[in-house]
């Protein structure tokens, strides 16, 4: 029973080898109940596959404006420090070209600031250095929690954002893989402190990268990197 259940998820997710898949399909042909279960779950998997990338990390909504006839003192909704969550996630195919260009420009600087190798240790404090389009004096660091599920980003010396742009934190690799971790504004003091969840272990990528993005609806990396640092110390 348990084995069948385990095989269902592996089959639907395409994680069975050819021989295992064939054997499971023979089992499906002989077992109407199993077939019905798999068919029912197949549509769920399809829906999850179709989910827009931004749906996995919806943006922070504006504060609620209480209706006039609602009693009580209006209270602003609690704003998290991460103001606008990722608009782009794993899109290697779409982002590959841009990433290649981005990395071609920034790789030299990235290598220069990549002082180590190996996996990120527990509670790693990682330095981000200015590159390419970053303003003079821009600097920051990423504190990755011991379990690699959360990180705190502290930045300073950045140009303030306006209504039409924002900064975005990425994990990226030389081969074009990249994943957006979250976006945020920067005020007049040029500083930002952001806490954010990590959907993947940072050591799976080579760099943390901070880009300046135009708020034009395009979720791709803008190609304008201002800070970058290795994912391992």
């Amino acid at each position, binding site marked *: *029973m*348990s084995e*069948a*259940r*385990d095989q*269902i*998820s*592996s089959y*639907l*997710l395409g*994680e069975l080898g050819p021989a295992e898949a064939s054997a499971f399909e023979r089992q499906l042909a002989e*077992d109407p*109940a*199993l077939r019905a*279960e798999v068919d*029912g*779950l197949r*549509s*769920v*998997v399809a*829906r*999850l*596959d*179709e*989910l*827009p*990338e*931004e*749906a*996995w*990390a*919806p*943006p*922070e*909504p*504006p504060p*609620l*404006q*209480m*209706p006039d*006839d*609602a*009693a*009580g003192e209006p*209270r602003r*909704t*609690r704003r998290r420090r991460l103001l606008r969550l990722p608009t782009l*996630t*794993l899109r290697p195919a779409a982002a590959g070209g841009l990433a290649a260009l981005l990395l071609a420009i920034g790789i030299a600087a990235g290598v220069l600031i990549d002082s180590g190798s190996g996996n990120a240790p527990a509670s790693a404090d990682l330095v981000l250095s200015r590159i390419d389009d970053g303003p003079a004096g821009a600097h920051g660091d990423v504190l990755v929690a011991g379990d690699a599920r959360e990180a705190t980003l502290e930045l300073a010396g950045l140009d303030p954002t306006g209504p039409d742009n924002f900064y975005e934190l990425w994990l990226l690799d030389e081969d074009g893989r990249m*994943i957006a971790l979250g976006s945020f504004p920067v005020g007049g003091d040029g500083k930002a402190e952001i806490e954010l969840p990590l*959907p*993947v*272990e940072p050591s799976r990528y080579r760099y943390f990268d901070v880009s300046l993005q135009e*708020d034009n*609806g395009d979720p791709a990396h803008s190609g304008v990197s201002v800070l970058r640092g290795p994912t391992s110390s």
Partner: protein
Amino acid sequence: MGLPMAVDATPSREQGRLAARLRERDPEALREVYERCGRVCFGFLLKALGDRGAAEDVQQQVFLEVWRRAPAYDPERGSLLTWVMTIARSRAIDHKRRRVPEPLDPDTAASAAESGTTVESEVEALAERWRMRALLGQLPEAESALLRMRFYAGLTQSEIAAREDIPLGTVKTRMFNGLRRLREMIETEDER
């Protein structure tokens, strides 16, 4: 096959109590609804309207309507989040239709009518996808986190097991339970 029923897709008592407080005109209940549904609703509106300012305006309209229509909301007919998303879908369609210029001649009128149909179907399809996102939010954390790792971060079940330092069998069980719970939530909502 006899697979065990591992999930329960019935509406939570907590949601029923929240709905009751809304009907009783408790402003704190509206704030709680916003905490629960505001993010997904805004994400949908932003995607549907493609303009942050417009999405913020419509978001306020949606929750004003939630407040005003609260006495008519029946939790037996759908979850709170589904109800909010239904309102959001309607307001998004209204907003997009208002942006279609008034027809000046029969040809333009036909084109505008067709455009209106397209707008509606596009928003409907988008709303359906975001409804799935809303249901995901109702899963137990262990299951939703696992589905996120699989479908958002693209990790295999083996990679998830290694990352989370849990047995592969546990990952597969949670994956199955999460998928099955989602399916039952969808069926429950569709039957209402």
